[in-house]
């Protein structure tokens, strides 16, 4: 907590290093535990050891031979990608308008999306369940994609409009003066500057869709559209007589990998995205 910038004394470095280690342990222990479980053999599974005594890849082999899981993984990937793509496109359009244009109803739109961001999703489950059943959307991909788009749109709109506001719009004027048509100004000047923001938003929205459990478990009934988080909770192991702990852990690790990859490669962007939309003015 030293505020006055002094010399980087070793003592201070050691103190900070210790604090850093506490954070690392805090964040990683539950992840490492599930990783450890996924590598345990059936015999050592219930020994309660944090580090496996015997290592095996058997759980991973089994999980990829389980049709329910493979199907759920495909559902998860497909649904999350489609929902992300649509939400980002719609969100970009709306955020551009909010950050850049003056039109009636702007405040209402911002207010409504804020409401949705804070909305208790479970309150929508009952009516959506009934509406989707009557429209034939229940237990289909679109039946999950639609609520995912809806609930990630506020996130997308906030993050993107925060990014759009950072773009110095004098550049657009400058491009016009340099002889660009509005289309050229957008393509060659604004779009390249907005791309990082759009990309960041896509990651955040994907994480949101990838994570969802409540809709996934309420609006699906079979493996036709069940995503991994929902499938996990119904998972009983490769065969009836087997303890599912190992395979569930392996499945859990598999769906954690994309998240870890995003976090490792785009830490800076994710932090910027999460914080820029939240605290402004």
């Amino acid at each position, binding site marked *: *907590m030293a505020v006055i910038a002094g010399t980087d004394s070793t003592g201070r470095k050691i103190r900070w290093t210790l604090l*850093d280690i506490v954070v690392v342990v805090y964040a990683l222990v539950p992840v490492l535990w599930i990783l450890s479980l996924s590598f345990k053999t059936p015999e050592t599974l219930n020994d309660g050891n944090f580090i496996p005594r015997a290592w095996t890849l058997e759980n991973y082999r089994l999980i990829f031979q389980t049709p329910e899981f493979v199907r759920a993984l495909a559902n998860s990937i497909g649904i999350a990608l489609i929902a992300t793509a649509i939400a980002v496109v719609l969100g970009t359009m709306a955020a551009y308008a909010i950050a850049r244009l003056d039109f009636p109803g702007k405040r209402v739109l911002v207010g409504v999306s804020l409401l949705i961001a804070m909305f208790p999703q479970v309150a929508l489950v009952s009516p959506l369940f*009934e509406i989707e059943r009557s429209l034939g959307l229940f237990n289909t991909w679109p039946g999950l994609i639609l609520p995912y788009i809806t609930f990630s749109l506020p996130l997308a709109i906030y993050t993107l409009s925060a990014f759009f506001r950072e773009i110095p719009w004098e550049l657009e004027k400058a491009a016009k003066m340099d002889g660009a048509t509005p289309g050229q100004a957008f393509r060659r000047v604004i779009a390249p500057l907005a791309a990082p923001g759009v990309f960041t938003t896509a990651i955040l929205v994907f994480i949101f869709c990838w994570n969802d459990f409540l809709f996934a478990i309420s609006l699906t009934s079979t493996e036709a559209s069940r995503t991994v988080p929902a499938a996990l909770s119904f998972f009983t192991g490769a065969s009836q007589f087997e303890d599912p702990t190992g395979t569930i852990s392996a499945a859990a690790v598999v769906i*954690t990998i994309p998240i870890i990859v995003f976090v490792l490669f785009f830490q800076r962007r994710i932090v910027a995205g999460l914080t820029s939309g939240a605290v402004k003015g």
Partner: protein
Amino acid sequence: MSEASQLSAENVAGASATARGVRGGSAGSTGSARRAKPVLSEGKKAERRLGLLLCAPAALVMIAVTGWPIIYSVWLSLQRFDLRFPDQREFVGLDNYITVLSSPYWWTAFGVTALLTVVSVVLELVLGMALALIMHRTIVGRGLVRTVALIPYGIVTVVAAFSWYYAWTPGTGYLANLVGPDTALLTERLPALAIIVSAEVWKTTPFMALLLMAGLALVPDDLLKAAAMDGASAWQRFTRVMVPVMKPAILVALLFRTLDAFRIFDNIFVLTSGAQDTASVSMQTYNNLIKGLNLGVGSTMSVLIFITVAIIAFVFVKVFGTAAPGSDQGGRR
């Protein structure tokens, strides 16, 4: 702001006076200009059209997927509607509300949810502030700390819940073995609630910390230096300078997390399935709806949750004056 507008008013008023003296006839009808009816130029109209056009798809989706179902759920909540007995569907007025509000299950769930929300948000605020300070000020491995801290935020809640579940499963878990081989803490009410809180806190503290870190970034270093020169200790600098400056960020973070915590579902579903009276209101609604297939009662609970959340948001915004994020005009710069 007001100064500027005063100034411009003066400008216009003065303009006619000056122009008379200097430029002969160039001062025209300045006086009447202000009264002129606002006429939208072509460009302005086109801008409005484009704005509406760009927002329309997003607005339509959001309204179609939330607006209509909300109205529909209010309608459903006024009916007796059990999918197992579809023939008995009829309009019953507020009967469902009486049933739910006089049910001990509902109030237990409500109490559990409120307890979990308050305890976990308070813990998250304390831990989140500590984490935010570490991420913001550490002089070693800042990138590493920030990266690692994002993992709990990103990880699928169900995955994290399974990790905690197995950790506390007797025999299997490293934590269960610490407290003794034969105690199944997840089957006892209070310990189970504590475990649910810890799972929730672990997962969401980083998000809280990130929001707080954004607030920390708004505290100018010079301000802290000035406070140190004025003789404030580290703790005083924190409570007297940092916290007041960060207050808006803290309130936003609290609002976000409170509303989010109130809808707790995933962790409870995996850890206890709501056994031993550990169900939250979301859990109860889900049970009535998907397991019990009772749409009438399920919808009633949905409406009640919605009202509760609206009250919480109202209290935050009106009583604490939390600035809703993005509620600024956001006009062009």
